[in-house]
């Protein structure tokens, strides 16, 4: 279900950052962002809120004020700190059932 791999920098100026995370965009976010997956580099000590702000720069990807995020397959708040190699998923409103 994870689709194709795209290796793209959402914000090229952030490549100086020492941590790299894998970003997954599901549902409408993937549609709006034009991809289901990308990689983002961030300064060490970055938090979930920081990567959300970075991703807002992606053309077409309209995010709510505080989108739901999962880090390494568990829900994480905006203050959660990110580490090298983390899997960060942006979770649009779920609609299972």
């Amino acid at each position, binding site marked *: *279900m994870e689709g194709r791999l795209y290796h793209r920098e959402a914000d090229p100026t952030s490549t100086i950052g020492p941590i790299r995370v894998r970003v997954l965009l599901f549902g409408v976010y993937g549609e709006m962002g034009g991809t289901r997956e990308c990689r983002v580099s961030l300064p060490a000590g970055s938090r979930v809120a920081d990567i959300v702000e970075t991703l807002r720069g992606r053309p077409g990807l309209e995010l*709510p004020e505080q989108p*739901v995020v*999962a880090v390494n397959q*568990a*829900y994480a708040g905006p203050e959660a700190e990110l580490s090298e190699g983390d899997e960060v998923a942006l979770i649009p409103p779920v*609609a*299972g*059932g």
Partner: protein
Amino acid sequence: MTRTSEVGTRASPMIHAILTEKPLESLEVFQSVGTSADGAVLTFEGRVRDQNEGRRVTGLAYEAYAEMAERELRGICDEAAARFDVGAIITAHRVGPLEIGALSVRIMIAAPHRAECYEASRFVIEELKVRVPIWKHEVYADGSARWVGAAPADAAPEPLSPGNRASEDTP
């Protein structure tokens, strides 16, 4: 998670949490649910409707964050088993394209008594709808399509977190 039944002691409840692209009717795991100590079995099934919010639906697909969805679903079943005296909780959600009338989800609960069946079943489906990362893409009779529940950015939906759960009380 060990539970004591009226006569003797039972082992932990049987729990399965499954994501699959196969028709849910075909899953073996639903064939024999619970033991002879379980006097009640409740099966909830979600089916693809031909309409949603007044629009005629012609096609549908579920996308899932597969590993996380299965992990969340399993967590919900474990939580239900800890809260309610049940013998088995078998839950499966289908992903991929589905036809109208196909089963999207099936939750089968066996328990010694019916009250626990209803409570556990309702708990699982309500939690599933809030926590499990699955999305629904609907295609309509007029040719348009959309991701269900996807609000525009300025609508700023409430952030979802494990602490932000639906109440277990049935309305």
